[in-house]
């Protein structure tokens, strides 16, 4: 079976010379939920931007990433971007339209769908994200949790097969966090979640990848890996509280 996402020896250096990724390889199977953890500056966001070809800007070495077996190439980027839905770290960057409806409709419109189909997809995505009724709302009048779910609706409206999430629960209050977590749990797509929220990883992901200084330093079953106190501390992480008193199996 071909992997939903496959990355082979991915390297990336920013224009200022900083080496962000130094040979990253991993794969995510269809339907799997994988957590991507690591300290600040490990290269998590940079890695995620490669998964639908936003980086590298020069398009050199796009082929290091394969989506459902097909290597990325300049001419299949539009299709790849539809299939790999990317949720950005800052909701304000992602909600760039004057109203929630317009924003969620952005992706479907780019796909060239007609108005009826666009409205249908928007209604469906908003219902999935629990935002029905907020179509006319301006993004700056949404709460933090609503903003995040509106971003997710915008991604879901493109009907992706893989969801790639960058810090989905950052700066959410506990309720917003809980709602988002339940929402993600209900979405039956392949997921790769980069986050510092280790409890989220425990609850949603069966497997984790630890990234530090542009390299994968550990990979394995969530509970086993997160209970390895020494490994966690070495890479700026910690054993999450919900695993404190549980025995690793």
């Amino acid at each position: 079976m071909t992997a939903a996402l496959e990355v082979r020896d991915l390297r990336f250096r920013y224009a200022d010379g900083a080496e962000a990724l130094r040979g990253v390889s991993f794969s995510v199977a269809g339907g799997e939920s994988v957590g991507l953890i690591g300290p600040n500056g490990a290269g998590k966001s940079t890695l995620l931007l490669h998964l639908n070809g936003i980086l590298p800007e020069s398009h050199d070495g796009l082929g290091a990433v394969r989506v459902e077996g097909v290597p990325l190439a300049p001419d299949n980027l539009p299709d790849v971007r539809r299939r790999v839905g990317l949720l950005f770290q800052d909701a304000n960057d992602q909600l760039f339209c004057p109203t929630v409806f317009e924003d969620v409709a952005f992706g479907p419109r780019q796909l060239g769908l007609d108005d009826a189909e666009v409205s249908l997809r928007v209604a469906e995505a908003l219902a999935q994200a629990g935002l029905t009724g907020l179509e006319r709302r301006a993004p700056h009048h949404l709460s933090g949790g609503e903003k995040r779910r509106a971003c997710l609706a915008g991604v879901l409206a493109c009907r992706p097969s893989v969801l790639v999430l960058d810090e989905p629960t950052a700066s959410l209050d506990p309720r917003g966090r809980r709602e988002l977590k339940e929402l993600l749990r209900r979405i039956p797509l392949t997921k790769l979640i980069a986050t510092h929220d280790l409890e989220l990883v425990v609850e949603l992901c069966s497997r984790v990848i630890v990234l530090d200084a542009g390299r994968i330093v550990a990979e394995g079953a969530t509970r086993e890996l997160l209970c390895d106190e020494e490994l966690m501390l070495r890479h700026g992480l910690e054993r999450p509280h919900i695993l404190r008193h549980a025995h690793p199996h």
Partner: protein
Amino acid sequence: MRADFLDRHSRLDSPIHRLPAGVKLIAAVTLATAAVAIPRSQALWLAVLSAPPLIVAAVSRVPWKFLAGRMLLLEPLVIAMAALLLLQPDGGRAFLFLLARTSLCLFTMILLAGTTPFDDLLQVLRKLRVPALLVTTLALMYRYLFVLIDESQRMKRARMSRTFVNRRTRSWRVSATIIGLLFLRASERAERIYDAMCARGWR
């Protein structure tokens, strides 16, 4: 800053608010064009033209105080431009005429913004086949103006909370730094927004 300072009151409910945005936009532009077309010898017509916007304002229930505040905010620009006419011989009448004419246009546009949500106006522009790039630029401006204002306010507060002396030259220098930083952050954000647009299929 209230997040809706651009088109506050535009979501009230009144017969005017319920009119289609296209009708209001075309009426406002027609009125402004007419006001500009009136020759100076027919100055009385200006008074006639100012009746419709005043009636519309009354029916729309947009507070007079709000409309007057907006006028006061923008009028200095108009006066500064018109004042150039005072340098001409017999410029007084020309000055007054220009002032009246421009104020009428200004009032009409303020009223339009006060009775029509900005995103409805954008939809109309799109339907009228205004170039898509221009409409997109306007939409992005409307969206990010608030983010930018919030950001500058946060930076200002952060500065104030660590400012213990009040020396003007220093505060100017700090302001310059903040403006520079704001510009930098805005351009970085613009890049991230572009990435987010690409991620959802923008070409």
